[in-house]
């Protein structure tokens, strides 16, 4: 990235905006290209001082996104190529990816093999592992934010809610993070301090969704989300999750635990074992990214499909409206 020797107008001229591909509450996204190389880019234009939080200067989510992306370099994390500001706009130049996992899951013309699912899970976990290694929580993991390029590579995007963890001073972490359908139980119960496990729960839900082709726990409200969760996985007991009765005062209907095999009929034992451990109620028992990557599922047959051979969409259509309730802008960018 250019550094201090060029001023913003020079940088701005390096990139050409071509067409609008998305719009959200605080940003507009364009598709463009790097003038010199013709490389496709996505330019996220963030309007400063206009949204509700604009009362406090540069948007916190803009800061979070920029701060995180600058420090993370990994093939499964979207690359922040450049930044420039223009009058009252902040522009992020990101790498451009055609498609995302949500579009792929919804496309009825695409058939998934278990090796494909394994490959996407592998890339997702690798990207997330890198975040956690750097003590960064993504906090908005969902298929819409897992971008997929023409070469089949999957990349984590939209770090607008990301923040670090493992900070003893952070005693009041927000619970209104992660899109509801992928939100971990401890967040729904209002935990003020949490850790890597919140991202892992989301990955578990994504794993389930890849197998089912529909969202696993699509709750319309927070209460409904919990209800759906308990129906699917059984109401947690004190044994499952020590201390959870202290976390919430609410009383819930006691649903029994049904084995995952009943719903995921075609999944192998190793698949179910991994899924179960990702969806453990007690966040302390939930798998870490390392543990997940070392799970036999990834070493067992079938081998994960090489990214180049993964099924893809026939044509990309960026103006699809996502069905999941968004906690940030509609476009993953």
């Amino acid at each position: 990235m250019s550094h201090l020797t060029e001023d913003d107008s020079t940088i701005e001229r390096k990139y050409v905006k071509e067409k609008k591909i998305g719009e959200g509450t605080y940003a507009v996204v364009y598709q463009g290209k790097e003038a010199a190389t013709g490389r496709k880019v996505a330019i996220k234009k963030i309007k400063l001082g206009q949204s509700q939080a604009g009362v406090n200067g540069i948007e916190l989510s803009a800061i979070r996104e920029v701060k995180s992306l600058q420090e993370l370099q990994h093939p499964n994390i979207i690359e922040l190529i450049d930044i420039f500001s223009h009058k009252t706009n902040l522009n992020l130049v990101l790498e451009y990816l055609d498609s995302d996992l949500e579009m792929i899951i919804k496309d009825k013309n695409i058939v998934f093999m278990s090796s494909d699912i394994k490959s996407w899970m592998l890339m997702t976990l690798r990207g997330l592992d890198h975040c956690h290694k750097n003590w960064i929580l993504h906090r908005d993991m969902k298929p819409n934010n897992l971008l997929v390029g023409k070469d089949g590579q999957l990349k984590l995007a939209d770090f607008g809610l990301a923040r670090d963890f493992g900070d003893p001073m952070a005693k009041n972490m927000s619970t209104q993070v992660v899109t509801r359908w992928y939100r971990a139980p401890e967040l729904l119960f209002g935990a003020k301090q949490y850790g890597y496990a919140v991202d892992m729960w989301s990955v578990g839900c994504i794993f389930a969704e890849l197998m089912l082709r529909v969202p696993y726990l699509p709750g319309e409200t927070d209460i409904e989300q919990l209800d759906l969760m308990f129906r699917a996985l059984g109401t947690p007991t004190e044994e499952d999750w020590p201390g959870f009765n202290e976390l919430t005062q609410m009383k819930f209907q006691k649903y029994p635990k049904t084995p995952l095999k009943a719903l995921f009929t075609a999944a192998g034992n190793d698949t179910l074992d991994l899924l179960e451990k990702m969806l453990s109620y007690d966040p302390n028992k939930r798998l870490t990214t390392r543990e997940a990557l070392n799970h036999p599922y990834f070493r067992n047959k079938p081998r994960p499909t090489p990214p180049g051979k993964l099924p893809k969409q026939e044509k990309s259509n960026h103006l699809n409206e996502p069905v999941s309730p968004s906690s940030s802008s509609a476009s993953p960018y």
Partner: protein
Amino acid sequence: MSVRSSATAKSTPKKLASNGTNRQGEASLSNDNADEVCPICKNNRYLSPDMKLLVSECYHKMCESCIDRLFANGAGPCPICGQVVRKVNFAIATFEDLLVEKEIKIRKRIAHHFNKRQEDFPSLKEYNDYLEEVENIAWNLINGISLEETEAKIKAYQQENHDLIAANAQRMLQEEKLAKLVEEQEQKEKQSEFEKYQQTLEEERKLKATLKDEFIEELATSDASPEKILAEKKAAAAAAAAQRSSKQTAEHAAATPYGIAGNSVGMWLGLDREQMDDSMKDYDPVATEYADIDGYTLREKYYDPFTEVSALSKTGGFNIKFVHERALQAAFSGICDV
């Protein structure tokens, strides 16, 4: 390559039922052999067709009457080997060859303890080594070789792997439950499919009948040419059929919302999912170009008067270990950058 002991472990040879058959109502094998002789009273089947030979704990056969006679007053020595046995410990042998009987019993016992699965091993080779070991132990026990040593091995293994054994035993139970559940569901599905099919046949028949009646009516009453009427009817029938079939596929798709996944079930089932791919031995799942920070070992507990972690935080998934590990990583990160 891999020897698997019987998965459906039930306990010891079946206890005697009053009609000479075991609990499953299967006739015992030994009843059919006319040359069977009781080694004690030398009685044979020819002379006493009702003679039943039972097996003792020490794997010696004798007929019921001898057992009654010898052990009427409780425990006593086996007439063949002298080991103390009781009347109640005699049972019908499942297999004629007592050696086989003994072997089965031993193998079942071992399987109960040595129940590790392929997934518990990092490589196929190690799994096979384990199986070889188990086989050696079984062999020793069956043939009475270094019994003491082998028993010790078994005990040691049991203690070491206590948790894993319990876990695997649980899993097996679970799997049996699941298998049953799946089977039941499949049965139900088949049944409902069949019923639906019957229904459709019935509907088709009715429709055909109605159309036929209408046709005849029309022919009788209408002024149009018979050919035209026939053509119309045919078209109507075709349309109705098309509508019905599309309705069916829609229903079918709706009934299985996981329709797409269902289609690939066939593809999945064909694969041996649990077998580790040998070529994956050198596989590095993490595949990162960055090294882990080393130079320290994270302890379980430190003296830390600075960090407060409430119980509630722990429940929410915040562990003080995060704080410690992060600090240690910060301390050793880049320190050797000279």
